[in-house]
């Protein structure tokens, strides 16, 4: 009879095991961030004179392109050896958290850009301002501002944008033709979008104009919030701002789209829903450029039947989200100069091009200004990528400088999800999320 009660200790033990590894450092923590306005001293990375090993954590280490980069780089820098660490994209951030907590962080990591502020705000990353200022190929002005902004915290850059995408509107040309509608253009509006969605919906025939997903409602509602002229948080990140009249207007508009969306997909994700678009059940689909890549590879039979338009403009103008991957260097790295040389190598123009639109299978945008403006090269393999490039000027990186934002995001998903299921009104969803979210932002 004693065994089971000992089991209950294990819960505590599991949580604690990780925590304890780093308990010794309680109260410590170095502060390496620049105060805003402080001048930046350019820093030049020095080539190591004896062999060093740089560990590089990513989920792309198996790709032939990356393997080629490693070989080429090691030839150019004979004293630097790149050691690849593999982790699945779904577990990447979690593994890095554990590695940082255990003082075994890799030198460089390939991360989802949303993780940059998460680590940067906790002094776990090296401030790259100095290195960038002293670099021949990675000056801040060479990167697309919205992508760079995603990698900044407290006025300093902690990650190099490596690839990226915006959110746009995929649409079925065949369904628009059948309904006698003209295709969405670069400057279409909420009204046109809504009326198209209505005309493309025929619930009796299980035909829908749009698709909405409760578990991801926060992410896909964000562009509508900005299009209405609203913001997620205040500029300092300390208080919620999405409960403004614009916030409520955008929630009403976005949740209202459920009447043009298949109800059996309400509880799904934009990944599950791809089938509905591919089979012609859904005519318009809000997604990033990854979706086009997926259509190309898994549903080649509808090739040519779909295209991409920018998201419609709202009362506050055009807006879209940016997402992407970044390269970061951990402050636990003992060979920071060598680590920087590797990061700089990967992001130099020819390599970034090879990594993004330079291959027919990749559908990611390059976050460098010169590459993104080269429209001829951009559309070489996937002409529809222009739909994404066109709205680059509208990209918003609502800089989420509050480290508790992740929790607020979960809360918004929960409340907007309830509104999609009709349990509460969109206005109630926004107000409840704002009330709980404010507590979370203040650290409660």
């Amino acid at each position, binding site marked *: *009879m004693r065994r*089971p*009660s000992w*089991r*209950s*200790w*294990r*819960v*505590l*033990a599991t*949580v*604690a*095991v*990780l*925590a*304890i590894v*780093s*308990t010794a*450092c*309680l*109260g*410590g*923590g170095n502060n390496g961030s620049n105060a805003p306005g402080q001048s930046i001293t350019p820093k030049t990375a020095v080539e190591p004179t004896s062999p060093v090993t740089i560990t590089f954590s990513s989920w792309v280490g198996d790709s032939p392109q990356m393997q080629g980069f490693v070989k080429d780089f090691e030839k150019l820098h004979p004293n630097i050896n790149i050691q690849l660490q593999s982790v699945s994209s779904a577990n990447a951030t*979690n593994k890095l*958290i*554990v590695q*940082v*907590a255990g003082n075994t962080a890799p030198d460089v990591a390939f991360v989802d850009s949303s993780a940059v502020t*998460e*680590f940067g705000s*906790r*002094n*776990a990353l090296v401030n790259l301002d100095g290195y960038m200022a002293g670099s021949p190929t990675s000056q801040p002005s060479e990167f697309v501002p919205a992508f760079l902004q995603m990698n900044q915290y407290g006025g300093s850059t902690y990650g190099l944008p490596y690839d990226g995408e915006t959110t746009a509107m995929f649409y079925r040309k065949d369904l628009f033709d059948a309904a006698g509608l003209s295709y969405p253009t670069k400057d279409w509006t909420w009204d046109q979008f809504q009326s198209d969605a209505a005309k493309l919906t025929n619930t009796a025939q299980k035909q829908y104009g749009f698709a909405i997903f*409760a*578990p991801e*409602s926060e992410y896909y509602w964000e562009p509508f919030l900005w299009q209405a002229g609203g913001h997620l948080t205040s500029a300092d990140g300390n208080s919620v701002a999405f409960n403004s009249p614009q916030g409520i207007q955008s929630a009403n508009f976005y949740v209202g789209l459920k009447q043009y969306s298949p109800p*059996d997909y309400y*509880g*799904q994700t934009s990944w*599950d829903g791809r*089938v509905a678009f591919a089979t012609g059940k859904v005519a318009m689909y809000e997604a990033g450029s990854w979706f086009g890549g997926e259509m190309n590879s898994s549903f080649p039979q509808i090739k040519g039947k779909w295209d991409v338009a920018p998201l419609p403009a709202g009362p506050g103008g055009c807006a879209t989200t940016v997402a992407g991957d970044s390269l970061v260097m951990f402050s636990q790295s003992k060979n920071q100069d060598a680590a920087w040389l590797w990061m700089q190598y990967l992001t130099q123009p020819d390599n970034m091009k090879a990594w993004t639109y330079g291959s027919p299978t990749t559908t990611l945008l390059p976050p460098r200004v010169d590459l993104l403006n080269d429209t001829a090269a951009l559309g070489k393999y996937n002409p529809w990528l222009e739909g994404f490039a066109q709205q680059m000027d509208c990209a918003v990186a609502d800089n989420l400088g509050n*480290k*508790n934002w*992740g*929790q607020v995001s*979960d*809360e918004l*998903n*929960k409340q907007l*999800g309830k509104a999609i*299921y009709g349990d509460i009104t969109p206005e109630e969803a926004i107000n409840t999320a704002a009330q*709980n979210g404010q507590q979370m932002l203040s*650290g*409660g």
Partner: protein
Amino acid sequence: MAQVTAPKQPITVTAPKRSITRQMRNEWTAYAMQLPGLLLFAVFTVYAVGAAAYLSFTNYDPVARSGDFVGWANYRAVLHDGTWWAAMGHTLYFTLGTMIPSMVIGLGLASLLNSKIRGLSFYRTAFYLPAITPLVIATLLWKWLYNGDYGLINYYLLRLHIIDTPIQFLADARWAMPAVILMQIWLSIGFNMVVYLAGLQAIPAELYEAAEVDGATAWQRMRRITIPMLWPTTIFLLVFQTILGMQTFDQIFVMTSGGPPGPGGATTTVTYYIYLNAFQYLKMGKASALAWTLFLVVFALSLIQFRWYVKQVER
């Protein structure tokens, strides 16, 4: 199960001097043999639990690797945290929803398998198999069964015209928890069955023979002999399954990630919420306070169940 109470008098050493050294030598051998186990226990249980207790009074951040002492603030925050109370509710729903059916079915199967039928050991093995299947594998299997697009359950429900659109079992807030519970019942029946079977075989056959002589029906034998005689087994299972249920994590992590609609949603149990706080929100202090709160709840529940057990058995 007999040694619930510890011996009353402490063991006193009153032996002469020479034998003390011998006794000590014997003891040291014993301690040395226990050492590896004790070390593991000390590092991964005692130290870890102690560290969690310490951390629960700080706002330690595992990535920033720093934190301050905050007193009871984390515990106060736990009590005022709506998601925690909701998670408690989900945990209770899961625990009761799993425990009661799986114990009733387990008892039923045990009674059937306690008789002399052909292929007995085959049935016993078959029903016990889920219990020894690795949890994550079993969970992944059920995740596919429940899938809304190509899951077998939806396939048959559609074919038999019971439903006309697929049910999104794991993505629908009304279905997600019942779906997880159903899987857990399937998983735990085997264990309950084996424990009940052991209990049944400990009941003297004379009792049944005497009852039969007295003309008792099968139902009366079940009601008057089997169930009362199995009482200690039942309480053991109650305690065991309560603790197991309160610690449910893997199933939620693999199947629903606490949703729908996502983390913090309809299937977020207390342990999953602890995980969210520790590794997603990076609030190690609050996570430790949550873990300690859960420990106290489980401890109190076990204590109540034990007291009840002792009272029942002594009667």
